[in-house]
């Protein structure tokens, strides 16, 4: 059994860890509120953008001449995966879930004999993926310096992707991120952004006759690159809310576990202290008896 001093030291160290995790939980809770707010505020923009694009793409008569960002390059050989993770750890399964989702997708692609290219956003994803898929990662983007997700960062990522698409470096682009559902649930998502998936929302009544100025094609070719940045921005917002949520619940768990540990250690400490007292008593009594 560990000595009393050792136990005491362990109790203090667990207690101070608990203090840290508790503080982290508080910070995450405050940040979560803000991240959630901005995720909600950002929603109208991406929804409106989506609507307009749906209306536009239904107005396009000739699919052949449609912009490539919408119709695709006609091939499905090279896949670009944009894996969006956080820059910081200690947030439970947040990063691991995205990576898991991405990895299972990668294996599927491998089986089908497709070529794979990876862009990682956020350093944690890069750390985990570079061991196995190091040769596939073509770019690593990290926004350690910017405090909150902002549109300019998203635009930067969007520009890189579009540039690569125009150089025909890939055919299909998918982004991976965590969708924020609530504090304890985040759903890893794989969303295809190039070519744009317009079929799923067909129930949207797009019978309105719009006037376009200039014509559909030109608007679309201007709008689609913006839409990519918008989608990435949306993913970033969802991600940052998810990250804080995941961190909050992870730190909550850690605090609780530390509490349990302190309880257990305290019992053990008391027990061994009592044992020492009893031992001493026995020694005194047996000493007195032998006299």
């Amino acid at each position, binding site marked *: 059994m560990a000595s009393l001093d050792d136990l005491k030291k362990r109790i203090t160290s667990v207690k101070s860890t608990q203090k840290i995790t508790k503080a982290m939980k508080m910070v995450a809770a405050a940040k979560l509120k803000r991240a959630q707010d*901005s995720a909600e*505020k*950002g929603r*109208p*923009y*991406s929804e*409106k*953008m989506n*609507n*307009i694009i749906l*209306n*536009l793409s239904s107005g396009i008569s000739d699919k052949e001449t449609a912009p490539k960002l919408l119709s695709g390059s006609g091939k499905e050989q090279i896949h670009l995966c944009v894996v969006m993770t956080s820059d910081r750890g200690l947030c439970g399964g947040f990063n691991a879930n995205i990576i898991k989702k991405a990895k299972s997708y990668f294996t599927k692609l491998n089986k089908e004999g497709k070529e794979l290219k990876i862009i990682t956003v956020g350093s944690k994803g890069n750390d985990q993926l570079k061991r196995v898929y190091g040769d596939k990662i073509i770019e690593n983007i990290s926004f350690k310096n910017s405090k909150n997700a*902002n*549109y300019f960062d*998203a*635009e930067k990522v969007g520009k890189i992707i579009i540039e690569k698409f125009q150089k025909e470096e890939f055919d299909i682009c998918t982004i991976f991120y965590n969708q924020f559902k609530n504090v304890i649930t985040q759903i890893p998502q794989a969303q295809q952004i190039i070519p744009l998936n317009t079929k799923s929302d067909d129930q949207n009544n797009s019978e*309105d*006759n*719009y*006037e*376009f*100025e*200039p014509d559909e094609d030109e*608007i679309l070719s*201007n*709008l689609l690159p*913006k839409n990519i940045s*918008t989608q990435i*921005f949306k993913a970033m917002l969802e991600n940052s809310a998810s990250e804080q949520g995941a961190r909050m619940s992870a730190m909550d768990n850690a605090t609780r576990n530390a509490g349990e540990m302190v309880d257990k250690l305290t019992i053990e400490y008391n027990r061994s202290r009592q044992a020492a007292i009893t031992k001493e008593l026995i020694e005194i009594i047996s000493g007195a008896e032998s006299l």
Partner: protein
Amino acid sequence: MSDEFKIEIVNPEKSFLSKEDVNEVVVPAFEGEMGILKDHISIISFLKPGIVTIQAKSGEEKYYVEDGIIEFKNNTLSILTSYILNLKDIEKNKLQELLKNAEEESNKPEISDQLKYLADQKVETLKSIN
């Protein structure tokens, strides 16, 4: 019958402005300025750098935008823009900074014609604000 309609301006971060009592909006559409009144036909267009003027019952407001898409439908005008500033709140040095950036951009040698045109528009608009 009133001749007012609704306007919504959103940027990626938040819903920037929402008004219900608008009489007329003039937007710098890509192919020239365009005034929108109530019961305009449904339209989608996009913007070049310029000034959005909103004539509302509560007064006239002017905003500087760098780009954007507009959609008008069922007497609701939605403007989506990535960069918007209220002319009233704009500060002199901020303006100078924007102007400098725009001028630099338009003077880049490798720039494409369309981008050059946009940058020139930006410079012109900013100068007119000055």
